[in-house]
């Protein structure tokens, strides 16, 4: 009952902070997109808007309007990645918005004729990226709460840092980032993802996993034999062997049979801030960063990682999306995101089917190649003005 009270109080505090953040900075002005369109030179040339042209992305006359089937097909690709390998799906969603549907190239045409529209399109792409992943964390968090696996104090540390990062980044960068810069930074993040995936395919990365499996199997076999004959009294003694030796804002230490475990609660706050800031800036959900962070850097047990990372992604994405949309009035193309979501859930069915026939390591190798290609293409396109690789 006590943890439920904590949950209710903490949820109210989090929601109050998010609402205050949304309402108290500046009023939302309707028609920001219409104003930007009105200020753009009229015509059929580059960097112009022809009012008589058919409406495209976000209803802008003459803007690219991806055929709905293509957005569903791309969503299937993203959903397949989520359900087969996991991380990298959000990155591919971003690639779709930037390159496949031609939105970045279209936005770049306004760099000189209407920088405001250029930056508005950048922000809209960022939010579209976030919708695909961030709102989905809502379902994950609800599921983990139902399972009783939300460990609230640590979740709040992560979420607290996450809210700050997810709020400050849109406030300070919305309307200020042009598409070239955004594409360049997106490319750098893709390099980081490529690095993580590549390590997992190397002999060292593989060896560490094999060793973990072997050690776990050995312990499991030994443990089953031992507990088959253990008495109740013995297991009671084990339970009382835990001693929490120190609680503080800088460290929590406990020992069990002389083995010491500790973690610094400051890590989740800093980690939450950095990860959500990157997620809010680039538009990738952050899920792929939270899980390895909590397990590798902080060394935390899985049952702490499970619910807290879902909660942290949820809170930071909601804050970021609301800040972009309601504080900064960034418009969204609902149909684009909606059709992509249809594709994603279709792709989620294919992932389990193909995983029976395609080993995970080959999928990861494929994604490493893709990530390097996208990373090189976007980084050069963003910072040099042209991509050294075709198709980017």
């Amino acid at each position: 009952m006590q943890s439920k009270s904590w949950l209710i109080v903490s949820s109210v505090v989090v929601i109050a902070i998010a609402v205050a953040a949304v309402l108290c900075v500046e009023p939302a002005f309707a028609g920001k997109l219409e104003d930007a369109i009105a200020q753009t030179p009229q015509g059929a040339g580059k960097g112009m808007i022809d009012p008589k042209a058919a409406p495209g992305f976000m209803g802008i006359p003459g803007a690219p309007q991806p055929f709905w089937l293509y957005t569903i097909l791309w969503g299937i690709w993203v959903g397949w990645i989520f359900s087969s390998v996991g991380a990298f799906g959000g990155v591919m969603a971003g690639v779709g918005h930037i390159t496949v549907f031609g939105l970045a190239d279209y936005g770049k045409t306004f760099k000189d004729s209407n920088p405001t529209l250029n930056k508005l399109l950048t922000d809209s792409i960022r939010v579209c990226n976030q919708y695909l992943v961030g709102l989905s964390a809502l379902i994950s968090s609800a599921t983990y709460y139902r399972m009783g696996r939300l460990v609230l104090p640590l979740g709040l540390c992560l979420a607290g840092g996450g809210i700050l990062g997810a709020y400050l980044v849109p406030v300070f960068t919305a309307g200020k980032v042009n598409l070239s810069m955004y594409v360049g930074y997106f490319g750098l993040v893709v390099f980081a993802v490529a690095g993580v995936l590549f390590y997992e395919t190397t002999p060292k990365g593989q060896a560490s996993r094999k060793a973990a499996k072997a050690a776990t199997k050995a312990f499991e076999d030994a443990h089953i034999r031992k507990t088959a004959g253990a008495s109740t009294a013995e297991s009671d003694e084990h339970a009382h062997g835990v001693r929490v030796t120190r609680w503080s804002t800088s460290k929590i230490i406990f020992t069990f049979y002389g083995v010491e475990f500790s973690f610094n609660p400051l890590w989740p706050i800093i980690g939450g801030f950095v990860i959500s800031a990157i997620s809010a800036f680039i538009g990738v959900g952050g899920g792929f960063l939270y899980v390895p962070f909590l397990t590798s850097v902080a060394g935390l047990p899985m049952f702490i990682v499970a619910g807290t990372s879902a909660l942290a992604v949820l809170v930071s994405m909601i804050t970021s999306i609301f800040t972009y949309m309601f504080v900064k009035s960034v418009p969204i193309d609902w149909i684009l995101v909606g059709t992509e979501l249809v594709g994603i859930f279709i792709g989620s069915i294919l992932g389990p089917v193909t995983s029976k026939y395609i080993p995970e390591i080959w999928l990861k190798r494929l994604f490493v190649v893709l990530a390097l290609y996208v990373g090189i293409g976007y980084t050069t396109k963003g910072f040099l003005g042209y991509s050294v690789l075709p198709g980017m």
Partner: protein
Amino acid sequence: MHELLLAIDPFLIALYRMSGYALLDFFVGTFILASIALVIGEFTISVLFLINRKHIDKITGDVVRYQNLSVDALTAGDKESYSSANKLANEAFGKSFFMQIALSAGSLWPIFFALSWMQGRFAQIEFPLMFTGMSVGYIGVFLLMYATAYLIFKRIKYKLPYFRRIKNILDMYDQRSREMKDFSDIVPQRKQTSASGS
């Protein structure tokens, strides 16, 4: 407005012409629209769940198995085995997490079509918020109605035969998650600690 939405526009706008009072009709119509989006989303995600059940079973099984092993390793004082089992538990959780993200798209997609249609019809509507100088538009009203519809549907959902079957399956997963150990299995309860005076 997209051609698909234009095709269903006559049916959707009929939801907003029930009483003849504009303000009441707007809220009632939005509530019904949100309810339709909710039910379609719930149905879609339940179908996805049934199709992917074996895969979800496997991933959930791995999560529970390695998590329990990591706690058992802690209980036995074997830090090395704990680290190994925890690493595998986190990998299994990572797969489960992203699988959930993909599946949850099945619940959320109708919302975006509903919002797109409302943008075409009600983009200029705003409700001023008292004492703030700010206003809430169609998005805020829709989200509020969706949350209300969700709370109501949650209470009646499992009275419907189809969702009752889904609930029975989900209850099995809940039971499985209760098999998953955590620190409370090895840390003394606070009441026991205070009672013993330690």
